[in-house]
Structures are given as structure tokens and as C-alpha cells.
């Protein structure tokens, strides 16, 4: 975990006071005990189409996604979650200690990013000879949340790692991320 990121999420500039620093440490410890992280990814062949991109058997319509993937040869889909108990933790502190809820929120956000990074590292190790591009997610400009339904079906996310979609395609548990990442063949093996 990266305390610098956590401070940035909390908009703390410079060194935090003692009480805040203690709170950050407490939250980091409690979050580490509470989280039940899970992650999956899968690498698909893809095909650029005029109005979008075909990833595996599934078509994603839109110029933005096509643009983001146009220089790549394959596409990885990933999903990560910190698990259900983390949401309960935030709810608890929202009621009993709002200061801790705010800090916990920042700590968990950083942990989620960390697991995304680790998943990306795994993707990087999987097919020899590929470079992995910057990951991006539904909800980014031009990438509608409706993409979530397709990603969920492709990776069987609900059954395998327990993330669910709300009626408006938001993810629960809330500390969850899905992402695309393009893979480009190097010609040489990186590893």
C-alpha cells in the first residue's frame, strides 16, 4: 500500500498531524484484515470493426473503445474486488466514526488500485512476447456502463468472484473494478 496515494485521496498536502497519521495506520491494518480480495482476467483475440471491436465472441460498439484498442493485437479483460466485508466496514464507520469512514474509503481505494496493478502484472506475464497497454474501464468518457453486462457474462464474474451489477450497472461490492487492457505483440520475449 502507498501512504502517499492515501493522503492524496484525502487531499492532505504535506505531513498529516499525529491523529490523522494514527487513523491512517489503524485503517490500513483493519482493511488488511477485513478484505477478501479476488481477481480474474482472461485474454481474448480481437477484431476491429467499423463501428466497434469484437472481443472474443462479444461485440463492443463505439468509436472510443475502438480508438483505445486500435493499436493492439489482443485484449485482456479483468475484474477485481476487495469483497463484501469492506463495504460493511465503511458503513459501520459512517455511522460510528465519520473520520474513520473517510480515511477507510481512501485506504480501500488504494488497495483496489493495488490489486488492479497486480492483476495487470499477471496479464503481462501470461502470453510471452506481448506488451500491455494502459488499462481503462466502463464509465470512462465514451465507454458506457452498459459494457459491464457483457464483461460480466464473458468472465462469469458474479459466479466466480462474487461481484454483482445493480439495475444501473454499478458494481457491488463497491470496491470493485473491471477493465480492458490492450496487448501488443513485441516480436521479442520480454521475460
Amino acid at each position, binding site marked *: 500500500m502507498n501512504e502517499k496515494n492515501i493522503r492524496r485521496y*484525502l*487531499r*492532505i*498536502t504535506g505531513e*498529516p*498531524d499525529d*491523529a*490523522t497519521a494514527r*487513523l*491512517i495506520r489503524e485503517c490500513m491494518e483493519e482493511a488488511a484484515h477485513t478484505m*477478501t480480495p*479476488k481477481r480474474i482476467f*482472461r*485474454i*481474448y*483475440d480481437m477484431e476491429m470493426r467499423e463501428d466497434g471491436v469484437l472481443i*472474443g*465472441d*462479444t461485440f463492443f460498439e463505439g468509436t472510443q473503445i475502438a480508438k483505445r484498442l486500435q493499436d493492439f493485437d489482443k485484449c485482456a479483460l479483468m475484474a477485481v474486488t476487495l*469483497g*463484501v*466485508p469492506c*463495504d*460493511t466496514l*465503511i*458503513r*459501520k464507520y*459512517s*455511522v*460510528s*466514526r*465519520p*473520520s474513520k*469512514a*473517510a*480515511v477507510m*474509503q481512501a485506504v480501500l481505494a488504494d488497495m483496489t488500485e493495488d490489486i488492479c496493478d497486480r492483476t495487470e502484472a499477471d496479464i503481462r506475464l501470461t502470453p510471452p512476447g506481448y506488451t500491455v497497454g494502459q488499462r481503462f474501464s466502463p*464509465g470512462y468518457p465514451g465507454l458506457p*456502463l452498459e459494457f459491464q453486462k*457483457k464483461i460480466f*457474462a*464473458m468472465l*462469469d464474474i*458474479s*459466479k*466466480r468472484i*462474487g461481484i*454483482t451489477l*445493480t*439495475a*444501473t450497472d*454499478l458494481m*457491488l*461490492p*463497491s470496491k470493485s473494478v473491471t477493465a480492458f487492457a490492450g496487448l501488443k505483440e513485441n516480436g521479442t520475449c520480454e521475460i
Partner: protein
Amino acid sequence: MRDIREQLGKEILFFDGAMGTMLQRAGLKSGELPELLNLRSPEIIYDIHKAYLDAGCHVISTNTFGANRLKFDNVPEIINAALDTARRAADAYNAYVALDIGPTGKLLKPLGELEFEDAYALFAEQVQAGKDKADLILIETMGDLYEIKAAVLAAKENSDLPVFVTMIFSDNGRLLTGADATTAAITLEALGVDALGLNCGFGPDAMLPLTKELAAATDLPLIVNPNAGLPEVVNGKTVYNVLPAAFAEKMTEIVAAGAWVVGGCCGTTPEHIAAEVAACKQLVPVQRTIPPFTAITSYSQAAIFNKKTLIIGERINPTGKKRFKEALRTKDMNYIINEGISQADKGADILDVNVGLPEIDETHMLLDAVKGLQAVTDTPLQLDTTDPKALETALRAYNGKAMINSVNGKPESMNTVFPLAKKYGGVIVALLLDENGIPATSEGRLAVADKIINRAAEYGISASELVFDPLAMTISTDENAALITLDTVRALHSKGLKTVLGVSNISFGLPGRETITAEFFVLAMQAGLSAGIVNPNSARLMSAYRAYNALCGLDPSFTAYIASEAVNPINQTPAAQNEKSLYECILKGLTEEAAARAKQDLKTKDPLAIIDNDIIGALNAAGQKFENKTLFLPQLLMCAEASKAVFDVIKATIPRENSASKGKIVICTVKNDIHDIGKNIVRTLLENYGYDVIDLGKDVEPSLVAETVVQNSIKLVGLSALMTTTVPFMEETVKAVRAVAPDCKIMVGGAVLTQKYSDMIGADSYSKDAMGAVRYAQSVFGN
């Protein structure tokens, strides 16, 4: 056909293997809905059933895993077709057909959006559609005890079929929502399932330890349907790598560990099942006898009545508490929930929940309290009510196996409570009194206990589901009261029965109550008391409790004792606590010190002066530093928490303190948005500046905001949104409020909001942070 329940334990029974794997073999693409094949291509399904029956299985599961109304409009049609196909295949082999019910794919509230009763309705529709043609119901791949409860109730209330439940565990040995195998087994047994076990998630290797854990926790028949190993993607296809022979060999170990019903899940094929049948069919089902034990659960943990006395927190109870009664009347749910959180933090194993007041609707209040507490704590609850309707409603909604407080020896009490306990499960507190009152002697109380045990047995409730309360009566009116109670505890304990006492009663009417109560608690523990209903906030009592455990070998390495003594206020010099002024305590966010200081200050100062000078003064100072970026959000909130603690102290002194309110504000996160952290921060600050905040929560309908504004003559509304996609709903809400209350001011905020957006959707003010909201409120209300 014979009832499958009669076959359990006589021979090893076999379930079929994977449906999905076989459908993929038959050409189903990922993302296609397999349930539709029941209508489109029943022959494919028939062939798969037949292949498993040829492999030797006794039970086939219908192709209806996801056949619920969230995914299909024609649920009865799909389920009917699936059953017709399964029946056609099974009848030729004299095999059983299980109506297969998988999870809804949604999380239930409070974790997700789906209401418990809505989940119940989804499952009930499936059961009604399939009950006439199925031989049993298989509820499978479940990762949430609450969803299981909804499904089991739906199965039992809409059919007479046997109910089997199998669960999917994660690699930490827990369900998705946190329960370990023991907790899950206790909860499912309480719900009255006929068999339970495991499926999916793992191969047989990883399921062996979980099977053993279940076998030690329940004597119900066990089912184990593993995957053929873990999934791997090879050439774009998901494959499972445990081959039939290895699978079958491992399954013999699972049978030896106690499973009576085995089959397979993802990746298993007729070849796996054939090998499994060949390897296991000669094995004799292991007969297990588990010594009866007493336990309750929450959604993720169990409280087991064992050698160590359990602490039941008594503070969620209005008796003699002005502030608590006030909270009940004003539906201040957060106050009630915080009473629960603080007791759990202080070491309560169970929380008693009593929210009865003559002038309130206890059924709704108890339901809200149970749901509110379970949203934030996994400490199991004891439902404390004399109202049968409130009890049933709360038992039904409770996530886990609850404790019920209470039944007594009167026939009408037993006739009311026992059927509910049998239906929903629950450990019952049995008060040793009856229509003749409280027996004066220990013998008399034991006779009532016998009567209750016999009556419970008639309802199919065993003595291990009862915890007897021999009634602690104050010694101030009868100096032998404690001795009689202790004798009764001892006698019950020697019979192997569990006991509980409302310990604090013993000292009623005496000075120095904590001392008498704590000493009596120690004596009762020595007499064998299983649980004490006590005040975990009493440092004196908890200190005695931890010392007793340390002395009796119940606290290995004295971990609990050492940890608690380090922070025990008894060990701190009182002078050191209160050096700082109230203003300073609040500004520094020292919650406990601030509350203690306020209590002292109130003896000499006017409450309103404390609010204006100390609370608002400190908040303003912190707010200004925050705006100058010399103090950051966590400190600002700590300061707010300290001032809230001071408010609570003031409210306890002058309960109907309304003169301090500076105005009423409605806030919420708008429709379709579920992000409420920012909104909660704004609420915290507004409340501390003396505003009454009506918090409508998250994902709120525009019409509800408008209605609330009209009903309460609201002058200021605050709306929050985090997503660009939900800003339109913010605009809709603004319009809805404008339509009914043109003079009401509206402030907006949230990560994606800007001044430009705010102007665009017609809001009156944009706040970039929580202090901005406070400043705007001050300008609207002129204070």
C-alpha cells in the same frame, strides 16, 4: 417414488455432474442463456440427463440454475419444460429429479439492492412452478446465508419437498458474505433443511477440509459436489484439469469424511460420475453423532455457548434511559446502532435488542433496528420483545440464527414462541416463572424448567435450543435472592443445561451498583453461568469478567486481559483526563475527553452557552483551518465527532432540546447513485452546526425528496451525485422540488459537480466541500 430422505444414510447417493460443461461441449457459446434450451432444444438437455443416469447417478438436477424473473419473463414455462425433460429421462431409471435453484445474481440489502422479501418472491415463483413434478429442491452455489434463508423459506412455505442446500466457499474457507463452514451449518440446520453441503468453487482436494468442518458442526446429511479442479483457460476455452480417475479417488476420502451424497459440479462429465460411482458405491455411509451444543449466529459468525461465559450487551433498551427513549420517539436509528457498535467494540458477544415503548410501533422499530444493526455489525443479536408480531417479523428478517428473549412457563407464552422458534430457528431464553409467578425456591424454578423442556420437545425443539434464566432479583428486598439464583444456576449447570441472567438486576436499589453487580457476576460464572446480560461499558464489570477468565484458564496467554487492562480507565488517573478545556477537546477531536469535560462543565455552565461557545466555536475554528488548508478532512471530522459526543451529553441532560436547532435540511444522494460517503460527511458537519438533517439516504426517487420537502416545510435541500451518469437525476430532483416548493433553496455537490453543471441544472448553490455546504446553510437560515 420413495422419499429421498428415507434413503439418506442407507447407501451413498449420487448426484449428476456439470450441466454447463456439457452444454458447452454441445456448442453453447459463452454468454448464451442455457435455460432457454429447455424450450428450444430439449433433446440436448435430455441427452445430458441420460448420460448422467447411464453413469449411475440417483439424482439429476433440472437445467434451471438461473431460471428466475430477473433474467426471464416466462419462468413457469421454462421450469415446466425443464422438469418435463428431466422427468422423462429420470423415470426410466427410477431416479430422483431435483428442482435446481441457483442464486439470483444480486446481492441482498444492505450489501446490495435486492430486498429480502423480493428475493423470497423470486424463489417462491420457481418453487411453485416446479414443485409438482420434482422430488426434491436443490438450492445450490449459494454464497450468502441471507439469500439461502430467502430460498429455504420460499421452498418450505410453498412446497412439502425435501430441501437440500449446497454452498460455494472461497479459498479463505468462507462464504462470499463471510460465514465459515461451522456458522453456515448451524444456520442452515436452524432453518430446517434436510441436507446441506458444498458445490462449485473448488476441486475435491480443497473440499475435503470443508467437508470435515461441516461434519463436525452438524449431524445433518452432507452433500459434496466439487468441480473437476480449478478452471484454466487454454486456447480461449475454460478447462478443468482433474481427470475422472483422480476425481473418483479423492471422492472416496470425502465419503470417508462423512458425505452421504456426492456428485460433481463445473468441469465434471458423465465419465467423472461413472468413475465416482464405481469408486464410492460400495462404501458405507459414515454415521456421525455430534454431541448437542447451543449456538446462535449472525451472517458471518457464531456465538457458541461453551465453557466461557458469553457477554450479552444490555444497552439497547429504553428502560430508565431518557436519551434512548428520545431516540426511539424521533427514530434516531444511528443513536441506537451506535449503542450496538460501542458494545461490540467493548467485547459483547451478543447484543440484546429491546426497542419497545408504549407509544411506538414496535414491529417496525424492531425490524429497522435489526436491519440497521446487521448492516454495520456481525455480532449476533438477541431479539427482546413480548410482542409476537414484532418477534416474528424480526426473526424472519434476521440474517442468521437469532437468540429469542423470551419464553416462560405460562402456556400462552410457550404456544406463541415455540412455533416461531421452530420455523425460523433460534435459541430461546426461558424465564423460570409461570402463571403462579416466580417460584421462591430453587426447586420451584427447576420444576418450571422441566415443564418448559417437555413442552418444547412437543414442538420438536431440543433442550440444547433453550437457555434458562433463573432470574436475578435484587438483594435489596431479599438478602437471600442471590443465593437462590446461584443455587438454581448450579443445579441447571449440573444437568448440562445452559443458563443466562440479567445480572444487573441484582443490585437494583443499592448504592455502588457496579461493585455488587460485578461480584455477583463472578459468583454466577463460578456456578456455571453460560451467558450474562450485562453492560459491557461498565469497566468494573468487564474487568472482573476478564480477570475471572484469566484465573480460570479461559484466556490463553492472557491476551484479552492484557489488552483490556492497558486501556482500562480504572488504571488511569482521573486528573490527567481533564486538563484541557472543552473547546480544546473538541477542536482536537478528543471524543471521550470532550464528553467527560462536558459532563463537568454542565454542572456550572448553561447548555446553550456550551453549544454556542465551545461546540460552534471549535467547529468554526476547525472549519476555517480546513478552508485555509492547514487542517484536513479527517481532523475536521474528528472535531465533528467530538462535538457530537458533547451534544449527546447535553441531550441526555435536557432531552427535548429543540431550541438549539438552527433549521431543518433534507439531504440525499440522487436516484441511481449509490455513493454516499460525501453526503454522509456533509450530514455530520451540518448536524454539528446545530441543523436538523433529514437524511433520505442514497438512490433516492426525486418524488420522495419533493414529498419530504412539502411535509416538513423545508427551506434547504442538499443533493449529492458522484457519477456523470446520475447528474440528470439531480436535475430531475431539482425540478421535482421546484414544482412543489419554489422557495426552497437547493445546494448540490459531489465529485463530478462543478459550478457550471450546478448552474445548468438550476441549483441555487454549488459546494465544493462539506464546509461550503455549512456556509451556504448559514446564509440561507441567517445564522
